[in-house]
């Protein structure tokens, strides 16, 4: 992965930059010891590493603004960071950048159950947002797999999804407003707890902008009343195509389960060996979850059972109790860990129209053979968000490059059938150079013009999202 050459002028002023940040921020907020900055050298795309020039960990919006003002004045690039769980390299530093981490800002500022929102600092983890309201029977809906660790700041930057967004939507559908600091240190409020502000939907474009438009420090999030209960079923098939057809029929019948997850044979075998969830050895399995009271769940699952029966499943298991429900989810939830046991892997997240599911799975199988690398598929079938996991060996010469080439082929395939490069992980560093597969130069230009407005000097997370050549002039990289 190519990164711009670090700016030697900035590197040579390292001491001055750190001194100014130290002078403006309380003790302990600035890290420049190379032993300590190494902790920040990568995110969850750990194949790429580079320690930053320094790290700042502010405790308030005002301190974020102070740090950004200094970096802006000195022309130093800033890479914002939540919890560092990005799979796309969204928080990957450059040698000449300051990493600005919001992890210390994790307070709940307000909870309002009557108006159904929570106001938090964005360093707070996704799961602990739900944790703050669940005693009163509420939850925060977007649930990325990394929800134990990932921060709301990163969720907003990447517009994160999760397994249950088939019913509840992704971050942008659950975000009411933000307090954000622009690169020049200006603090702005977009939206608010009441939602509609009758202006341009700037909040909508900030969400998913990968930390390139501003550093979001506080957010108003929609909270929802928890359903009375939930129950998963496991349906196993002898063919991926049939499983895909079953998903289409369920949706077509007007049933909207809260989640429909899909796993293929390589993934099932890996998780069985790792987690022993008791999955059948089959070509494809679906985990479908229904929500509501017990009679409502019975009503929904009986219809799903009838539809599934038309496709001759080799197994249809309805969770009889909480323990069995947990076991059904166990394999799915440990799928990434299980694949990790088998070797290094790269996780893609292209989305496809659900009607293209069987064709795409077949093509991925062919490409896997062609490249000689195993691919397991585990994904959100209801919304077409694929997660092909490509296994490779990081210690084997050329394997990473081969894996990246196969990944690129798979993502091109997703776009070709009418889908997109990323459904929920973001572009970051990882898919930056594939953007022209999906977008024309005019499309990319329009997006970059938005960044021009929010960050005219292109200092915030500059070498991400857009192909380096496309953004070179704006970044001053000539």
């Amino acid at each position, binding site marked *: 992965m190519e990164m711009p050459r670090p700016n030697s002028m900035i590197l040579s002023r390292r001491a001055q930059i750190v001194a100014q940040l130290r002078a403006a921020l309380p003790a302990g907020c600035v890290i420049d010891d190379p032993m300590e900055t190494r902790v920040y050298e990568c995110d969850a795309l750990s194949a790429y590493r580079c320690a930053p020039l320094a790290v700042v960990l502010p405790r308030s919006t005002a301190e974020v603004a102070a740090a950004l003002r200094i970096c802006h004045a000195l022309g130093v690039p800033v890479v914002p960071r939540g919890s560092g769980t990005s799979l796309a390299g969204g928080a990957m530093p450059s040698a000449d950048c300051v990493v600005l981490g919001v992890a210390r800002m994790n307070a709940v500022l307000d909870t309002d159950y009557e108006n159904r929102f929570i106001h938090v600092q964005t360093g707070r983890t996704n799961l602990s947002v739900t944790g703050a309201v669940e005693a009163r029977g509420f939850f925060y809906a977007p649930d990325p797999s990394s929800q134990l660790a990932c921060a709301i700041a990163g969720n907003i930057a990447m517009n994160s999804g999760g397994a249950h967004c088939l019913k509840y939507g992704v971050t942008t559908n659950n975000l009411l407003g933000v307090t954000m600091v622009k690169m020049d240190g200006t603090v702005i*409020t977009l939206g608010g707890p009441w*939602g509609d502000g009758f202006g341009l939907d700037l909040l909508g474009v900030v969400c998913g902008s990968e930390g390139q438009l501003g550093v979001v420090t506080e957010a108003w999030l929609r909270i929802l009343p928890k359903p009375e209960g939930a129950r998963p079923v496991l349906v196993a098939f002898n063919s991926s195509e049939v499983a895909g057809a079953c998903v289409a029929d369920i949706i077509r019948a007007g049933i909207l389960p809260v989640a429909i997850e899909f796993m293929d044979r390589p993934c099932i075998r890996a998780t069985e060996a790792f987690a022993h969830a008791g999955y059948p050895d089959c070509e494809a399995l679906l985990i479908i979850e229904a929500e509501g009271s017990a009679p409502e769940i019975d009503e*929904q699952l009986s219809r799903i059972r009838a539809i599934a029966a038309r496709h001759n499943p080799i197994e249809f298991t309805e969770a009889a109790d909480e323990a069995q429900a947990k076991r059904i989810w166990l394999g799915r939830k440990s799928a990434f860990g299980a694949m990790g046991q088998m070797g290094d892997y790269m996780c893609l997240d292209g989305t496809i*129209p659900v009607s293209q599911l069987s064709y795409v799975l077949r093509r991925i199988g062919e490409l896997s053979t062609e490249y000689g690398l195993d691919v397991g598929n585990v994904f959100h079938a209801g919304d077409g968000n694929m997660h092909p996991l490509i296994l490779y060996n990081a210690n084997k010469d050329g394997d990473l490059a081969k894996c990246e080439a196969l990944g690129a082929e798979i993502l091109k395939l997703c776009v070709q059938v009418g889908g997109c490069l990323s*459904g929920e992980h973001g572009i970051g560093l990882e898919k930056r150079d594939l953007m022209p597969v999906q977008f024309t130069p005019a499309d990319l230009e329009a997006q970059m013009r938005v960044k021009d407005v929010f960050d005219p000097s292109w200092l915030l997370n500059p070498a991400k*999202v857009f192909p380096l050549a496309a953004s070179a002039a704006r970044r001053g990289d000539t």
Partner: protein
Amino acid sequence: MILPRSEGELVEAIASATSPLLVKGGGTRMIANAQGEVLDITGLSGIKLYEPAALTLVVQAGTPLAQINTLLADERQRLGFEPPDLRGLLGRDGVSTIGGIAASNASGPRRVQGGAARDAMLGVRFVDGRGAAISSGGRVMKNVTGYDLVKLMAGSFGTLGVLTEVSLKVQSIPEAEVTLVLGGLDDAAGLAALRRALGSPYDVSGAARAGGRSYIRLEGMAGSVAYRAERLRAQCDATLVENAQSAAIWADIRDVSALQGRAGDIWRLSVLPTDAAGIAVEILAAIGGDTLRDAVYDWGGGLVWLALPAGADDAVRAAVNGRGAAIKLRGTGAAPFAPQSAQVSALTAALKAQFDPFGRFAAQSPMSQKVIP
């Protein structure tokens, strides 16, 4: 008048324009008092793709809403965000098009459960003021590839570009629908009942109040709807209205029928549900009105419609100040954009300058509005 028949012709028309254009679909939601040479987009009409099993619809911007509704209904599907028909309220005639709905983020009562138009919009194509054809988003449910210009275009009232194509997520029409009707409550108690219902686990898909009654809607499978209605009725004294009769109630709420044909100005307020009654009473007390006659509350109180005599602007601004946003949709000085903070106004102006540097869509500029001091 300019009537392009294709995106190429639209590009040509915008690139060769020398004065402001007035972008027009069916003309039912246009900004009042906007000026310019009419650029009629109804020539860009038709269904590009409809996959019922994927809940996906891609249409050209000039496609009439009625045509879309018929197409979807044939497959027992619908637009989940329930776009309002505001012709009666605004005194317009014409044929509503999907482009106008997208450009105004027109969203009905189901917003509290299923989201707004902007949430159902998966992708757009548009032509900006430089004459560049631009695509953002796509036709799939989950997409974080690049900046979300779809949201930027939703509700921008054609100030940044002309929509040519919209991809939408659609939903199935549920088999059953009931409405709980609550009478005999004042605004404060009637709105509190709506908030309680929205805070319950019973998946309320409509929560509104008009003419002294509160309405709570439930939709879904028959057994589930019956169960949830029973549970909610245990908390409040309500009569049940089913299916077609229930649908008629929500069509009236959606289209703000209660305020149609009223003289004076029509206002739309976005506030916290707990502030709704207080703000409405404060405004109406200042000008001698009555919420029973002059106010319709939707979204559990988060949306307030008011029919006010002309000249109530100061009373509205004073009551809403710092507690939400208000726009006048009909009347002198009507505009779809509310005053914004100085910083947001500056960003808005800068985006406008990027997407429409020559002022082709200047008659509808969001910057013509006042800045909050």
